[in-house]
């Protein structure tokens, strides 16, 4: 299942790269891409997408505390 989620307050390009790497490591994620310019997360995952997005949100918060997924 593929999902495109908008992001808010993504201000650091290097952080976006870090998020992308970490989100790709979540169990069940087939591919994930964080676009710094478009402020979007595009994620393809198997299984419980909501749970995966919750995990992704945690990772994002850890890397850039103000940044949020708009679910």
């Amino acid at each position, binding site marked *: 299942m593929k999902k*495109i989620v908008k992001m808010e307050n993504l*201000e*650091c*390009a*290097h*952080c976006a*790269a*870090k998020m992308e790497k970490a989100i790709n490591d979540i169990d069940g994620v087939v591919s994930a*891409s964080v*676009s*710094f*310019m*478009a*402020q*979007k997360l*595009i994620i393809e995952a198997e299984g419980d997408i909501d749970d995966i997005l919750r995990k992704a949100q945690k990772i994002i918060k*850890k*890397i850039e*505390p103000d940044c949020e997924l708009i679910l």
Partner: protein
Amino acid sequence: MTKKQKRELRKIIITGVLFIAAAVCFAVIEVPGNLRFIKLAVWIGIYIYAGGNYIVKAIRNIARGSLLDENFLMTVATVGAFFIGEYTEAVAVMLFYSVGELFQSVAVGKSRKNIASLVDMRSDFARVIRDGVQTEVDPSEVAVGESIIVKPGEKIPLDGVVVEGSANINSSYITGESAPAPVAAGDNVISGTVSLDGLLTVRVEKAFEESTVSKILELVENSSVRKAKTEKFITRFANVYTPAVVIAAVLIAIIPSLITGDWGVWVKKALIFLVVSCPCALVISVPMSFFGGIGGASRKGILIKGADHLEKLSKADKFVFDKTGTITSGNFVVKEIRPAEAFSEGELADIIYTAESFSNHPVSLSLCDYCRENGASALSGDFSAEELPGLGVSVKSHDNEIYVGNKRLAVKFAADSDEIPDADNTAVYAVINGRFAGYAELVDSVKDNVPSAIKYIKEICNGKTFVLSGDKKSAVAFACEKSGIDEYKAELLPADKVAELEKIMNRSDGATVYVGDGINDSPVLARSDVGIAMGGVGQDAAIEAADIVIMDDDIGRIPLAVKVAKKTMGIVWQNIIFALGVKLLVLLLTLFGVSSMWLAVFADVGVSALAIINALRALK
């Protein structure tokens, strides 16, 4: 500027004023030795005001286990500067760092907005007719089948069919084509185009989410997800660069100091290393350039579905084209008239003209035009015509009986049917009173702007051009010769096309571009390095299959796309080389002792700013 940015700006201005005031004061007034702590306290005060938020962030991030982020590096560098007594430098570094961060955030926000507004040709409202009354609603609330009114000068909000009215339509936002096109009842109109002068009633055919504008917008916004190799490389590089420089800084601080005992000098060098260790300039400017390039291209009617495609297109040296619909227009023109032995060219032209003037078929029209231009006139007599489906046409008068059509028809009605040759191309045969009179050969005409576009492509890419076609050899050869294409393969089955494309791809290392209409050549589009579909407006299948979509069928946009790609890649590499070059230079200078905190701040913030300004050029 956002509120946050304004707050930041105010802070920077205040810090700047305090900084200058303090610097001047301490230069003029000699602070007595026992009161030196006042000086330190003042500088620390300004420092905390300027950089407090970065310090807090740094601490918070360490608590979360993320070391080596830029806040942390800056904090260590500036706190370190305090310890070695470089108060002014410490505050200045923090101040300039804030300026750089603010500039970055403003520039990024601005280019995001610019690009979004470039691409966003959606209307804010649709004027829908409900129960006989016009109401303005959000375009997403209009259902398929409802009628909307579009006034002169307004954007058409949704895809549909004109049911009433006529207007000239400007579709430059969507296709890049600036010449207006007329529409009237029964014609399709596309969302995002503008009615220049007429009042139109349009029956909506597609819901808002499915409309052309929504799809284009989505495509361009999501294009930055498909990252170019260069961008991935830079990300990986940044992951190595920062730790490497930090480790170098630690070593520089400790080892030479233990040997020479000169801690102050070497710790300072190490701190300068820390300031330069941030990879921001690279990490921001590379995706920004790609985003700008893609956004700019979309304004020219070229949709690029990912930064990786842009990157490959810039390296293309082989361009493969489909023939029909891409190189040729699908309009048949007469190539030659070949009379049978007993007939002259003029006689044959008269016969064909007589019969074909009764038909409205595009081929017949083009035949009539040709015969008339060559002085043909209709045979005298009162003719009556009859269509023979699948064969051609028969016209009869008191004196003459003429059949004009395909070979089967000629064989059927000519007594001397053994005489009838096979034509190389599409041909129209003529029989008069039971005798074969000859035939006219027709070819698909090359589109007007194809030769110049091909020439341009060869020029800017120094590349080769090819045609792969299922058509007859002579027709393909004719089209290639007319358009200046180097090589061709004809009479290919769809499956052969992929194999032939692969042969071409193996010829050189550069990327291979395939250009087709995207309708029946999706396997080839997919197999090529960059698949370009022409005439994408309203063709969902084509948009799906291709990497790059040319919105109208103007082949001249292909060299344009290549130019955008080359320019964007140029900017990307300028930024990479410039940013890395300056940073490495400053690292070296620092090592050999001719450097300062000021230079380091320039290598970090200044270089970022310049790289961002350069990246903004890609949009143009």
